[in-house]
């Protein structure tokens, strides 16, 4: 039980995908305009990554490994992830058109959100078992969602701030992200795995 808890903490805070591993910066900057869309995106990412960790783990262990097709890992993982994202998009378009419209291009871009593939690959690399993989996937994606949500709150503040013209928009957002990641360094060493 403790391992799983520590795994979540480690994935979500200490080794936060966005702020310490610097993965998934594109949706991090793109969807952080309003809290509503950010929480939608966070939820979608949590769903996709958690499911994708499960499916890719099963795939790796029962199909690729048994058949000795380890080299197919990357391409098959991408295929599975893409399917999931498409599925989420189709469902979202039907269920919540407003959120779908707000997420816009960033929703299909979960496919190319490197977090997703990173989680899937790390699960295999770190030799996690099935449950650990799902836990790690959940932790990592929650970390992404947390970082995204925090950043969105900040973004709503800095979007109404008054930076010099050269710094307006993405530049000041990136500086804020940098400062935020400095703050996240406080979690360094929190979990010794």
């Amino acid at each position: 039980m403790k391992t799983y808890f520590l795994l979540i903490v480690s994935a979500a805070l200490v080794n936060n995908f966005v702020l310490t591993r610097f993965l998934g910066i594109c949706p991090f900057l793109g969807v952080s305009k309003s809290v509503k869309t950010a929480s939608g995106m966070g939820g979608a990412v949590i769903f996709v990554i958690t499911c994708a960790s499960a499916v890719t783990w099963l795939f790796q262990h029962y199909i690729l490994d048994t058949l000795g097709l380890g080299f197919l890992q990357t391409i098959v993982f991408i295929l599975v992830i893409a399917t999931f994202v498409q599925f989420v998009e189709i469902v979202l378009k039907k269920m919540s058109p407003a959120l779908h419209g707000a997420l816009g291009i960033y929703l299909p871009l979960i496919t190319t959100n490197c977090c997703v593939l990173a989680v899937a690959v790390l699960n295999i690399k770190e030799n996690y078992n099935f449950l650990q993989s799902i836990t790690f996937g959940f932790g990592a994606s929650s970390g992404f969602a947390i970082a995204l949500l925090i950043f969105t709150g900040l973004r709503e503040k800095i979007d109404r701030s008054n930076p010099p013209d050269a710094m307006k928009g993405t530049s000041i957002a990136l500086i804020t992200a940098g400062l935020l990641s400095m703050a996240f360094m406080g979690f360094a060493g929190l979990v010794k795995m």
Partner: protein
Amino acid sequence: MSIIETTVIVFGTTGIACGALLAIASRVFAIKEDPRIGKVCELLPGANCGGCGYAGCADYAKAIIMNDAPINLCTVGGAETVKKLSTFLGKTAEAAERKVAIVLCRGDEANAPKNSIYNGIVDCSAANLVSGGNKKCRYGCLGYGSCARVCPTGAIEIKDGIAVVHPELCIGCGACVKVCPRKIIKLIPASRKLHVFCSSLDKGPAVKKVCKVGCIGCSLCSKLAPDNAIVMSGALAVVDYSKNIDDEKATILEQKCPGKCIRKT
């Protein structure tokens, strides 16, 4: 079985399975939408200025398809967009003439004095709420630049305390017309060059007291102008923009106006 065959089979099966899943999903969660809306949206200029009266280009595209809205409302795209839309939709419509905004006031700092010092938000609507604004003339331009701020193309400049439109930059979206609390910005055909630069409905003596370049309602211009191209609305001369005034006549009118508010642009 060779490694290649296995690869092909595994990869192929996975692909087919994923495809099938998506196919089923898209059938179950299908949404109907007229594909023409997206196409029309692409044909529109995408300025999202709202000049057509709809909330942005996408909204206008929807209105064209769903509610049969006229296709010549876009002032930004002008004739070209109308042509494109009419070929695509098979509808005909005459291109509306290009319109530009004009501020009908020339009462700048030197000509129209203020009656007090204003301390507050630099915004015309906000200033107008404080004791009705601080210009002596109740119709004059306040010059706090609300119009300039909403202008999507930066066509409005605040010069000597009044707003001036640069017609070559104006796309005629009408955002400034909506925002002006004194309602002195008008959209006019771009080809018209003679204007009465005053919006004061007050009578002559009252206007004279508050502004050096106001219309004093002498009605001289309405008599001189051909074809009733300038008419009197109470004590204010108003140009009828549906009628053309040739340049020669315009020069005469400009020179003759005793209030010095008829000018050419």
